[in-house]
């Protein structure tokens, strides 16, 4: 067969565009504009609110910036906030490719984190740091994955809508993990509601340059993980089934893609990824499970995936943006009179609304798109279309 095939070479750029799901440079630009304009509008509205509080918007921006990048410690903390968001962003973006809404990343990450802490208790004898981390990661991934797969199963078997079941499972996860924390593996030496600390072999060492901010090699692992996920979804048969089902359920079924299998598997992977937040928090930061440790990362993950426009690679910059916002907002308490860290909730909500409001950007992107097209046409005639 292959001997009479023409040799087709695709340029790297073309391949890249294909893999992120845009047909051309203009299309990429249009979708970037939509994201940026939405995020910008949300941020602007948030700053306007600060103006009402009597704080000049520019000052807020400066605080946000300085607090995110001002020092090694600050940057390390920014990355510490970014890391869970990469994972939850992926946990939302991957099922979304298959047409599923994963509102349950919050519950999945809670269960995963508890599993990581539990792994520390069970594997107290493991002395090799590598094995210890692998052990905890497997636990976290499996626990989060199973938790994530439940809504997939319920949808596949009973047709229960995943949005409702994932929301409910978030609460169930919170209740269950609280129970285990308080009754099963509670730290007897602590007055707080927290589990027995994991042994030292489980610790992920932070970088010195970050001056005590809890982030080290893990961030590279996550970046590579996101790139691998992107590569895997774009190149694999599984990723193909995901995309086909997400885009046209009937066509996918007609051509032999079993939707039930895709639902369960994609939700398992998503839940597992969210569960890996346990690595960031338990092994990297606090070394024990504390009730309510998450800064709503599961929900902000929806925003991360949305600003990334469902794109796996786009999750990285998008997570950094929200990580900056979460870290930066922390300094508002100290540096301003009237604005608190809770501003980040306002801004995050507004950014999501801004990016989600498709209709808002149609006019703008059409205008800019036409403008670009005309310029391209002026330069040279021809091309695709």
């Amino acid at each position, binding site marked *: 067969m292959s001997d009479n095939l023409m*040799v087709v070479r695709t340029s790297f750029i*073309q391949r890249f565009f294909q893999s992120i799901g845009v047909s051309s440079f203009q299309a990429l630009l249009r979708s970037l504009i939509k994201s940026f304009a939405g995020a910008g509008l949300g941020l602007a509205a948030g700053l306007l609110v600060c103006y009402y509080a009597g704080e000049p918007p520019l000052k807020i921006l400066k605080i946000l910036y300085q607090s995110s990048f001002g020092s090694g410690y600050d940057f390390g903390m920014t990355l510490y906030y970014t890391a869970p968001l990469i994972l939850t962003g992926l946990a939302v973006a991957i099922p979304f490719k298959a047409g599923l809404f994963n509102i349950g990343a919050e519950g999945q990450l809670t269960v995963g984190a508890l599993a990581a802490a539990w792994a520390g208790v069970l594997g107290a004898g493991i002395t090799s740091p590598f094995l210890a981390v692998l052990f905890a990661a497997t636990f976290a991934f499996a626990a989060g994955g199973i938790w994530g797969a439940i809504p997939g199963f319920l949808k596949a078997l009973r047709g229960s809508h995943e949005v409702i079941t994932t929301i409910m499972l978030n609460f169930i996860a919170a209740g269950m993990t609280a129970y285990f924390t308080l009754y099963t593996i509670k730290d007897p030496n602590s007055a707080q509601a927290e589990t027995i600390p994991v042994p030292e072999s489980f610790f992920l060492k932070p970088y010195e340059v970050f001056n005590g901010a809890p982030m080290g090699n893990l961030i590279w692992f996550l970046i590579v993980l996101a790139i691998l996920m992107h590569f895997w979804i774009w*190149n694999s*048969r599984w990723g193909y089934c995901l995309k*086909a089902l997400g885009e*046209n359920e*009937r066509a996918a079924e007609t051509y*032999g893609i079993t939707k039930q299998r895709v639902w369960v598997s994609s939700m398992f992977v998503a839940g597992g990824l969210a569960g890996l937040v346990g690595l960031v928090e338990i092994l990297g930061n606090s070394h024990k499970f504390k009730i309510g440790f998450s800064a709503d990362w599961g929900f902000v993950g929806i925003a991360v995936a949305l600003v990334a426009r469902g794109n796996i690679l786009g999750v990285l910059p998008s997570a950094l943006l929200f990580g900056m916002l979460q870290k930066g907002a922390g300094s508002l308490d100290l540096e301003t009179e009237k604005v608190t860290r809770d501003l980040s909730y306002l801004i995050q909500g507004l950014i999501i609304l801004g990016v989600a409001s498709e209709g808002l950007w149609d006019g703008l992107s059409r205008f800019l798109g036409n403008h670009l097209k005309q310029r391209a046409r002026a330069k040279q005639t021809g091309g695709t*279309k």
Partner: protein
Amino acid sequence: MNVIEFKRVAKSFGDVVANRDLSFEVKAGTIHGLIGENGAGKSTAMKVLFGIFPADSGEILIRKKPTRITNPVQAMRLGIGMVHQHFMLAEPETVLDNIILGHEPGWFPGLIFRDKARKELTEISKNYGLAFDKWDVPVSHLSVGEQQRVEIIKLLYQRSDVLILDEPTAVLTPQEVKELFQNLLRLKQEGKTIILISHKLKEVLEFTDYVTVMRRGETVGTKVTNETNEDELAEMMVGRKVSFTYQGIRRILSDSTEIPSILKVKGLSFKGLSESCVDVTLNLRQGEILGIGGVQGNGQSEFLRFLSNPKEYFHKVSGEYTIRDQSVLADSPLDLRKRGVSLVPEDRLAEGLLLQQDMTENFLLGQHEDPRYQSKFPGLLDRDAARARVEQNIKAFDIRPPYPTVWSGRMSGGNQQKLVIARALDSKPEILFVAHPTRGVDVGAIELIHEAIMNERNAGRAIILFSSELEELIDLSDRIAVFYGGRIQAEFGRKEFDPWKIGKTMGGGNKE
């Protein structure tokens, strides 16, 4: 008096012309038939009248007054009502609520006087002899025929004088059809005007007073029903010149009985979602095209879905389905693929394409497990190989625009269909199910598609061709089986092909 007059009305959607030139008049107090083949523009014409799509040009006169109807509400105020093919009824709500919606007796925003409405409806039902009184039953509990009657009562309640019925008999049993027409005749007696859209000659001839024939977006002419006959109308509908006749090679089948059947269906019965199949028995031999015809809604669609995905029907089906004498009742589409079955689905947009993916991605759909397109690394796809095949097919089928990176959603209907067919043929299938291969496809592409199908036949493949175009079936098929009411009403060998005879069986008549 003319209630409605169309004067040179035209309507197009983008580049597609649905109605080129509509000119006809409807007299008050008559039943007026509007007939034409599928895609002749009947429904669009009526939707223009009902204000769903405003006309591009031309003039519509309502009771002699030029009127521009821009929305259904305005049409309703003018006394024009329509029973759509898909009923506008909310299933969990009661009949009464469905009927009075938007015209509830009572004060806004206060309570509804349901008793008053019930009395009025009973009156209407009695006056028009409709024999209906299930006002407080949810619509979902009614049969299709009863739901249709509810739609008619709704129009009467809204005081419509002109009732448009879009293919009202498509979904009814023969018994219900009879009742429907009794009701319509009674409505006519009471002074209502009825416009009946249909492509069934028999019922039009039997029940209408006048009949307007449409062909390819134009009105061909209006006849007094009593002064015309089936042949004349059929000729007007189809037109003298046949638009596409296959001119190429047709390899003569040796003696068809000598060739063993590769696919057999025996005594197949099941109840599907909207249609059912009853005791269907078919054989398919290599090197032949078996045409499946029939009016839409008589079981063909469901039969095709069964053929291409028997696993989905596994629990509700009785009968046999074998390929090369092996039962395939439990096969999934991918299993069938491995047996050399390939599919061109009925509705390429809904079932065949990923509109926001490029040609290569679409080409891989269904072929994603084909060994030719697997990379050396386990689990990965080899898109370069797929892309090379797409490039070849672009040349072979003259697909435009000729770039594998074009989104299928940005291609014309004809080119989309070529892509779907190229994909179906890519695995060199031995059995091919092709449904409506030329629906919504331009003339140039039709020829090419027909040639491709014929080439496959001549190369010895076994093909089942589903089509609602009788001409297409007659052109390509070696045999034609006609579905009616979920059964095979008749089967014709090539020597027996006769459009009128086949058409008769499609309407439920017997072969002889």
